[in-house]
């Protein structure tokens, strides 16, 4: 069967299955189980209303539980066990973590991840704020924002290809086809550089790709926040003789502090999960390893589920503070 047809069929089955489930389960509840008539009509309505939310929620809760909650527990278990040849697992305590801590590649990934975690959110937020402020009052601002926002739609893999062309290197006697080398030679560089193989600095070149993608996101959110600032505060500052820089840094930025924090944390989470860019551009060679790619290496190349799961738990641990913070904020907002 052609996959496209198979896809259409599955959409039909999936969608009608979902609709059918919701419709029939509600019908069953109202017609058969607790019909709102007869001697117990009142009690039946109440009972039906107690059960109904769970009918609506059941598929979502099942999927969330199975695909997100259960894996957290299971990964934790796997990280504390080793596969025994021939099937089965044996409890090894923290051995996987100890083994991981002894690998230089892991520490390389940790070090790089720290740089990623500081630089990418900082630069994306800074650029996003800059663009949001600059485009706020110019006539072609929306067009400019649209174009800077565009990389959001491009896949990490597509972006990797785009930037790999920018970083491309040709032998010294040939014309350079990568923009970075062309500029480097133009401004007096002597030898074309193979940028992605220069340890330490190459990680920053990979970060550029993610900053390029995430700036649009930061810009959109911060731009909305800037527009939400009450005009009076700015007018008052102008009357007091503040210059544009003072208005921006002293009046506007403090008022959108929470939004900046939200943008920062959201990008932080994206950074922790980033895998495709490193995988496609260097695959962790030349000291560019990051945690997500290290984990993929362990799981699917080395087939070491124990250490792979341990490194996944490290990612989870790094996300945990943000998770707690988000949940607390959400609860406060609901009250």
């Amino acid at each position, binding site marked *: 069967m052609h996959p*496209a047809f198979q896809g259409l069929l599955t959409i039909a089955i999936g969608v009608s299955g979902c609709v059918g489930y919701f419709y029939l389960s509600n019908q069953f509840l109202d017609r058969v189980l607790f019909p709102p008539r007869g001697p117990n009509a009142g009690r039946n309505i109440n009972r039906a209303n107690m059960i109904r939310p769970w009918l609506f929620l059941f598929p979502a809760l099942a999927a*969330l539980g199975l695909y*997100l909650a259960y894996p957290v527990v299971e990964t934790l278990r796997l990280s504390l066990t080793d596969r025994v040849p021939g099937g089965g697992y044996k409890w090894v305590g923290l051995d996987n973590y100890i083994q991981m801590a002894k690998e230089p590649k892991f520490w390389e990934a940790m070090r790089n991840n720290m740089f990623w975690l500081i630089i990418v959110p900082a630069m994306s937020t800074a650029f996003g704020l800059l663009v949001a402020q600059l485009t706020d009052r110019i006539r072609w601002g929306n067009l400019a924002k649209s174009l800077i926002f565009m990389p959001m739609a491009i896949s990490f893999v597509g972006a990797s*290809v785009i930037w790999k062309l920018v970083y491309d290197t040709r032998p010294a006697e040939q014309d350079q086809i990568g923009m970075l080398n062309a500029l480097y030679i133009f401004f007096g560089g002597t030898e074309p550089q193979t940028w992605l193989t220069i340890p330490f600095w190459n990680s920053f070149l990979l970060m550029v790709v993610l900053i390029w993608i995430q700036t649009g996101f930061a810009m959109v959110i911060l731009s909305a926040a800037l527009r939400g600032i009450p005009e009076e505060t700015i007018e008052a500052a102008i009357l007091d003789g503040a210059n544009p820089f003072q208005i921006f840094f002293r009046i506007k930025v403090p008022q959108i502090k929470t939004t900046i924090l939200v943008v920062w944390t959201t990008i932080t989470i994206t950074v922790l999960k980033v895998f495709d860019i490193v*995988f496609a551009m260097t695959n962790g060679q030349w000291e560019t390893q990051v945690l997500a790619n290290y984990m993929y290496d362990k799981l699917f190349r080395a087939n070491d589920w124990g250490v792979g799961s341990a490194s996944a738990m490290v*990612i989870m641990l790094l996300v945990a503070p943000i998770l707690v913070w988000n949940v607390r904020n959400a609860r406060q907002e609901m009250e």
Partner: protein
Amino acid sequence: MSDIAGTKPALRWVVHASVLFLVVLWVVPTLGLLISSFRTADQIATSGWWRSLFPSEQNLTQRSAAPDTQVLENGLYVIEGNLFDEGTKATISKWGVSSRAVDAFSPGETAELRKGGTITVDAKGNYRMENPEEFTGSRGSRVFATAELPPEFTLDNYHKVLLAEDSTDSMGRAFFNTLTVTIPATIIPILVAAFAAYALAWMDFPGRALIIAAVVGLLVVPLQLALIPLLKFHLNIGIGKGYLGVWMAHTGFGLPLAIYLLRNYMAGLPRDLIENARVDGATEFQIFTKLILPLSFPALASFAIFQFLWTWNDLLVAKVFLIDASGQTTVMTNRIVELLGTRGGNWEILATAAFVSIIVPLIVFFAMQKYLVRGLLAGSVK
């Protein structure tokens, strides 16, 4: 009033210039790839894409026709022809017959060939070789030319990447595979999440706040954690690697954001509307399908775009849950990574393949930007 700060002409000019600079900085890398996808392999390899917009001077190494095409004219052996392919409008400024002196001659001059005979080349690349004795050897003579070539673009790459049937470069199948992954993986989570969001927004039951908090928490759980446990689970229940597995995985991973976005939106709908409907005797199911769903269209559209972009652009989930050893179910992102590995130098194939995969999200992006922005604003946890 607040414009006062922005009306100083010098400052205004600086603002415009810096925005322009940033926009150029952001657009140029993509533009480079787009232009490269319309160039031939030779062009890409020998000059930067920015040169292709202007006539370019290039150092070319061409070869004359082979000696077996020679004819005898008035006692002279003659080979005639043009150094360039038909249709190439090149203008030669200098040429030579030795790699040590590639610009020894001007158009119209005559050079001595090392193996005997002479050659005359004009500016358009027409050449005439003469020799009193027969030309020997199996290959023609090399001619080095410095020529100015007009900008030239081709659709051949797209033809090759999209339609070539046998070729390993083909993206046609991967394109349809990606589509097959994306559409169900976008629709199913919307449906499941919409019902759950309605229950969380408008039904009263114990544990509601807890579930909402759990959804917010799950928003940030890295999907890396789910790879091994779920792959194991899929293998155990017999789905293995395939479309069903990847649809389910994308549904699971997309749900927290879907529920969060939709619940926030639905909770903002006017209370009167829903209570009136309840008083009028509508069942919850009717309220949901006839009232809530149509009213929530903007939020549904926002999430649909997110999920579409995310599933279309995804590499990791497809690699783990879909692509098996046969490679029949490969998706475009995976093809591109493979091309990067095996054909890292073939920019014409890479650039074109990348653009084929980028173009659909870009169209969706520009067509529905409004909803995407709205979704982003609602979706970032405050």
